[in-house]
């Protein structure tokens, strides 16, 4: 391999932010997201000579997700489930004042707690969680997420939609921020 590392860094460092977003949520128990970002870039550098001009953001996300999985395998742990293992009953008990299903969106939007969102997100099935992280947290388009995950765009859209709805309901059930000023 004789890749100019400066050219590589010029091409990839602008995406450090999105790789970090993915790494924060892909890193499993005992994994440091910053270590995962570094590992992602080292793997990307090794593979840069074989990069064929596909979407760089999608390519880096795919490498990051693969790195997280392989590190988790080495640790014999599952990568997406260990970080936020707090059960929902750790949250404030939901207001049981007969809240109607229509209130879901208003409740969630009214006031949100990022930590609670992270915990609820961790309760989603991995495919939905990954799609939400890519699209809503890291800002990928559905097409980019599909490229990173190697699945059709329609699949990504369906997963992210189901995941968002479930996330909203989980937050409502957890009583997140409901009734707070």
């Amino acid at each position: 391999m004789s890749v100019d590392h400066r050219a590589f860094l010029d091409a990839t460092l602008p995406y450090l932010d999105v790789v970090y977003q993915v790494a924060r949520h892909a890193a499993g128990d005992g994994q440091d997201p910053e270590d995962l970002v570094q590992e992602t870039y080292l793997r990307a550098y090794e593979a840069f000579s074989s990069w064929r001009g596909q979407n760089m953001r999608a390519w880096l996300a795919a490498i990051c997700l693969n790195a997280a999985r392989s590190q988790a395998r080495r640790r014999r742990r599952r990568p997406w489930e260990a970080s936020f293992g707090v059960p929902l009953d750790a949250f404030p008990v939901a207001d049981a004042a007969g809240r109607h299903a229509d209130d879901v969106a208003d409740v969630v939007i009214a006031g949100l707690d990022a930590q609670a969102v992270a915990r609820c997100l961790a309760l989603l099935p991995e495919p939905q969680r990954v799609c939400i992280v890519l699209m809503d947290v890291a800002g990928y388009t559905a097409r980019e997420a599909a490229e990173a995950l190697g699945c059709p765009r329609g699949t990504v859209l369906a997963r992210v939609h189901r995941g968002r709805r479930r996330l909203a309901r989980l937050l409502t059930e957890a009583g997140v921020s409901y009734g707070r000023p």
Partner: protein
Amino acid sequence: MDGHDTGHRLLAAFLAGDLNSADARLWDEHLLACEHCWQAVREDRAGRQAAQLLRQPPPAGLADRVGFAVELAAAGTVAQQRHCHGMRLRWRWLAAAGAVAATVAVTVSVLVPGGRETGTMPAAVAAVARYAQELPPAQQPAPGPGGPGAPVEVGSPVTVAAGGQQMVLRVLWLGDVEAVVAVSAQPFAMPARAHGAAGPGMAWIARLGSLGLYCRNGHASELVAARVPEAQLAALAARLPPA
């Protein structure tokens, strides 16, 4: 196609951002009449907005860390490309360095197996750690001319290269602690699981088994490896003579 199917199709198109103007009008009309789709849209929007709360900017210094890591990987790659060509010379050179280091009874040849990365541990850092781990047990020497507590060097400095990075290794006693101190003109890359530390330049601390690693990168970068708790590493490094 009944109303439900139409609604489902329009919902999917809406979520995908694929509605054309005609469908957009249909969709608006449908939403007013279909509680199910209205609920789906509201929850979708709420879930998206909630997830967006999880965005966080990357920590300061991450770009530098990644840049360092890639630079060192690049240096290691060059070293590997040269590896076969310079194999004989390299091992002769290492053997000579090993002879110089005989007073500390360390086999230098095991330090730099091809200058490759060891897992996520940068090769230069791995070499220093390996050197420190291979030190045979020794008794604390008598105080030197600087008096009790002043650094006392044992043996002779050894110059080695790992991952394309050249450095000089010394064994010093700092009080009752034996430490390996590596000095290099190039910065030592942060290994995985290291964390930043107070200190000049890009200082970091890492632990490798019982070994603590403290690095301060600067004009001349220093890496200290000693069997002490992390909390004592910075204080230990502060007792070193100027590089």
